[in-house]
């Protein structure tokens, strides 16, 4: 009865598309990582672990690309979570009227193509004529004006800042829904017991919001590790390689025809993400039981 009523071929379309365009390339990648596959020759030779040795050479730009990606990911997770949580609480308990309007406006950057956000901020952060530096000068804070995208120690933080601006509204909207899902009774009981705002936040809001915070962290994590568009437009990995990320280095190797190394880098990334996918599935499916 089960097989006739719910034929497994119904899953065929999804499995075929997913298998051909997601799983197959990843599995092929495992094999090609050990070869010298490139655009200059049709012959592909086995080179063992050479590609991985190139990638994990401590002085290579690949290692710094991985480091930058991790810095970007950790920083954007922290910034987006903290700011989005503050805004979500502000819009659910501080502001009553117009709350919906504020929410819709703050979310707006999330519907813009990331690429477009990059282009606009490239102009805003321009050291000579950009809006940020000229505004700082206008309000007498000219000392804070900086070479936002070309200063080697500042560039990655500018990229992180722009991406936080872009992504914070999305996380805020999820957290607002999470706050609304907390039963009012808890807050009523707390106010009867004379709990302070801080206590309410610490003992009710935060613990009950944890499952939602776990999901937003996973979303930020998956986005952060794959970051590409915004960096490409703002700095293209520069100055030098100080803002180079994993996806950017794969793209530039691909452009240079060094497919073997690019595939090996993709494979390293694939294995890391495969590990993270277990965590993702665990966190995202946990609430189905509850």
């Amino acid at each position, binding site marked *: 009865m089960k097989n*006739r*009523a*719910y034929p*497994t071929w*119904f*899953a065929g*379309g*999804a499995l075929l598309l997913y298998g*051909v*365009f*997601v*799983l197959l*390339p*990843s599995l*092929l*990648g495992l094999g*090609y990582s050990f070869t010298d596959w490139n655009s200059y020759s049709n012959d592909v030779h086995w080179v063992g672990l050479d590609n991985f040795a190139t990638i994990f050479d401590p002085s290579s730009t690949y290692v710094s690309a991985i480091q930058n990606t991790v810095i970007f990911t950790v920083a954007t997770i922290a910034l987006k979570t903290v700011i989005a949580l503050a*805004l979500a609480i*502000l819009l659910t308990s501080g*502001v009553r009227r*117009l*709350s919906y309007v*504020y929410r819709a*406006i*703050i*979310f*707006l950057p999330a*519907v*813009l*193509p990331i*690429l*477009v956000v990059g*282009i606009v901020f490239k*102009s805003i952060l321009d050291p000579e*004529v950009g809006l940020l530096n*000229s505004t700082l000068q206008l309000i007498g804070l000219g000392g804070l004006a900086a070479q936002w995208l070309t200063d080697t120690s500042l560039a990655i933080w500018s990229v992180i800042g722009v991406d936080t*601006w872009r992504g914070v509204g*999305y996380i805020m909207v999820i957290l607002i*829904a*999470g706050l609304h899902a907390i039963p009012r009774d808890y807050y009523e009981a707390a106010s009867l017991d004379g709990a302070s705002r801080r206590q309410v936040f610490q003992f009710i809001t935060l613990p009950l919001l944890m499952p939602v915070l776990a999901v*937003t962290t996973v*979303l930020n994590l998956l986005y952060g590790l794959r970051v*590409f*568009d915004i960096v490409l*437009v703002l700095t293209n990995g520069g100055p030098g390689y100080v803002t180079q990320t994993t996806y950017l280095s*794969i793209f530039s190797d*691909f452009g240079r025809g060094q497919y073997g190394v*690019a*595939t090996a880098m*993709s*494979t390293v*990334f694939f294995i890391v*993400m495969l590990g*993270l*996918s277990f965590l*993702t*599935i665990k966190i*995202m499916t946990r*609430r*189905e039981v509850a």
Partner: protein
Amino acid sequence: MTVYTMRTIRSAVSHFTASGVGILALAPLYIIIVNALKTPYDASSMGAGLPLNPQFGNFATVIDQGKLVSAFMNSVIYSVGGTVLAVLTSAMAAYVLARHRRRSHQFIYLLLIAGIAIPTNFVTLTKVMQVTGLIDTQLGIILLYAATQIPFSVFLMYAFINTLPQELDEAAFIDGCGPVRTFVSIILPLLTPVVATCAILDMLNLWNEFLMPLYFLNSTANWPMTLAVYNFFGQFASSWNLVAADVLLTILPMIAIYLVAQRWILSGVSAGSVKG
């Protein structure tokens, strides 16, 4: 009275903060709009001043030079095609996977949603696209777009289908409906809310997708809006008025849709992350 005053002050501070953040969120959009109407000289600093002498001709230049009409059509074809395909195949898969309680089906489900995390290997995917003859084709991009949206769509639909009583489809089956008819006339109508959510999220992702066209579409004629605006930016980086006009026209459809459908978009975004 003091409680009342406290409350008023707190509310004023809250509104002040919220509008401040709102202004920060809107500022770049404002910058784009005013500069899109400036002369090249006035726009060279991308300042916040209003255009003294509005240049509506900028838009005509951009539509012509930036190949915006064909790029717009391509974006519509890719995002709508990818979304429809992803939503349909995901709904069918989620339905049978949710109804079977067997280990094999559980495994297929987990394999599919692992794709939420698994990254695309663009290098070997190029090989796959070449071998299948799909590289630099519109069909190829649509199939690829659909594949990337399937994992999260299956995840959302599976959870939703689990809330639908199985008696519904069993009754239909006993009345003599085949599996296809049961799915189309009983299940699919009940899935409307989750289908809408998935469609909104998929569309949003696909309309803004940039990396896949960058890797797999070489012909200018096949470019979507994102790739067209990126190339326009590369060519006209010094003419900020034209870049701003190009950017404005690129984001206008999305902003129009957002203004109309914001309620659904905002609730769709939190679906799947928040239960109840």
